[in-house]
């Protein structure tokens, strides 16, 4: 079984892989952890509404308010509509994000987020029930603002922006899931997500399956911790979504 690869220059038989000692240069600690302190997360208030837009099939409003921050966004679902062009045995989903905020995110970023969301909902919506049709989802970011007006230097401002787009994603997922459920479109499960440290993880099946993973920046060694925090948030959002849908039912 000792097949030698003669195309490569191999080292002597007793060679060991090189190992480097840990770098001693000091890597500046990132402050992104401080931007979303754990205390704030637990005190975050979430309010959910569905079915308030008349001319679409389903809609949802998500408002999140924590001590120093307030976010609200609206999702609307249109369809299933007929598509033109070649035959598709499954439905297709398109998601568009529209920024109603004070010019914070460039279109590239929003497109990235919407394609990320599309990836999630392609695996969550029961697409095989919708041949030859398309489902259009529009997300409108209405409000995202720090309530505290402490002066910040430019550097931390830019950090805020980069961490905020990831902090919006879980709310986008919550609102789209609610809007789809409101539209009566078949979903395999209620998708939800949590955000920790610029990392967004989206779950289904009670946190047993991951349907989406987004990472902006931040440290990579605490990935498992991020995962746990995301799952915690997901469970909270999911319970809220279900109670919202059930309240509406009764």
């Amino acid at each position: 079984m000792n097949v030698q690869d003669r195309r490569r220059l191999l080292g002597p038989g007793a060679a060991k892989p090189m190992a480097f000692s840990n770098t001693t240069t000091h890597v500046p600690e990132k402050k992104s952890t401080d931007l979303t302190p754990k205390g704030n997360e637990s005190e975050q208030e979430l309010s959910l509404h569905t079915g308030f837009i008349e001319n679409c099939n389903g809609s949802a409003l998500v408002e999140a308010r924590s001590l120093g921050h307030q976010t609200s966004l609206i999702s609307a679902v249109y369809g299933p509509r007929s598509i033109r062009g070649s035959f598709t045995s499954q439905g297709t989903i398109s998601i568009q994000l529209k920024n109603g905020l004070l010019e914070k995110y460039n279109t590239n970023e929003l497109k990235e987020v919407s394609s990320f969301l599309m990836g999630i909902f392609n695996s969550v919506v029961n697409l095989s029930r919708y041949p030859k049709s398309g489902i259009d989802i529009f997300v409108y970011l209405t409000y995202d603002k720090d309530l505290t007006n402490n002066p910040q230097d430019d550097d931390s401002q830019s950090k805020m922006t980069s961490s905020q787009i990831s902090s919006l994603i879980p709310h986008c997922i919550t609102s789209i899931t609610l809007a789809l459920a409101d539209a009566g479109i078949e979903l395999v499960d209620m998708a939800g997500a949590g955000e920790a440290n610029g990392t967004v993880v989206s779950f289904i099946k009670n946190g047993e399956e991951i349907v989406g993973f987004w990472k902006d920046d931040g440290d990579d060694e605490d990935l498992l911790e991020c995962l746990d925090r995301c799952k915690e948030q997901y469970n909270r959002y999911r319970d809220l979504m279900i109670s919202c849908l059930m309240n509406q039912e009764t």
Partner: protein
Amino acid sequence: MACNFQFPEIAYPGKLICPQYGTENKDGEDIIFNYVPGPGTKLIQYEHNGRTLEAITATLVGTVKCEEEKKTDQEEEREGTDQSTEEEKSVDASPNDVTRRTVKNILVSVLPGTEKGRKTNKYANNDFANNLPKEGDIVLTRVTRLSLQRANVEILAVEDKPSPIDSGIGSNGSGIVAAGGGSGAATFSVSQASSDLGETFRGIIRSQDVRSTDRDRVKVIECFKPGDIVRAQVLSLGDGTNYYLTTARNDLGVVFARAANGAGGLMYATDWQMMTSPVTGATEKRKCAKPF
């Protein structure tokens, strides 16, 4: 309900409703419940303690409904006479302690909305969301364009599959149905998609599919006119743009038409290929659906 499983009353997407199978032993007889996922549900695999399990899961918000799938008379007869059918099998080889085994198929479905909130609990939602045209469905269409080979139509509504005993369509199996659906017209759901925006599902009725007799001599212009409302059946999902439809049945064809290319009043079918305007008495040719 003749099953032992405790179903949840209200479901939401991702809610586990029941396992794929259930068993019960009653009077020395094994009853196996085979739960079949119906509309609004899906059979989904779950990992539990390292094992893969399948469970019927809700995909809609609504009330859970389960009903036994009735066997046809033929099957029941066979079951009565023959002990070794698929439905009933002796489990043990020894004839003394024969355990009889019955398989019950139970259709589990989730209907959107609550029992109270729904006007008629037998119909699906009032839009295309859970009601896309499928093969074999009856649809109401409007003629948009004619050519020598085909009529192009847009699909306005799909006749819902489940229909109650007392309401016309399908009550006697695949029997004859009044044009326009008779009293079953309530089961027609009008699409929310506005036809003005070109958002509707489109269909094609090929000249061969207009009627079942003399089909190679069909003149499309003598069967339909633009604007006619046509009741048709879906033959296939067709290509990307069009569903393929047929009117080759007595109860399918034009149900509403205006005289003089839409300028006159409504006409009534006088026979299977003639419509008359009661005001002017003028007649026009159409492929009419059987009016009564």
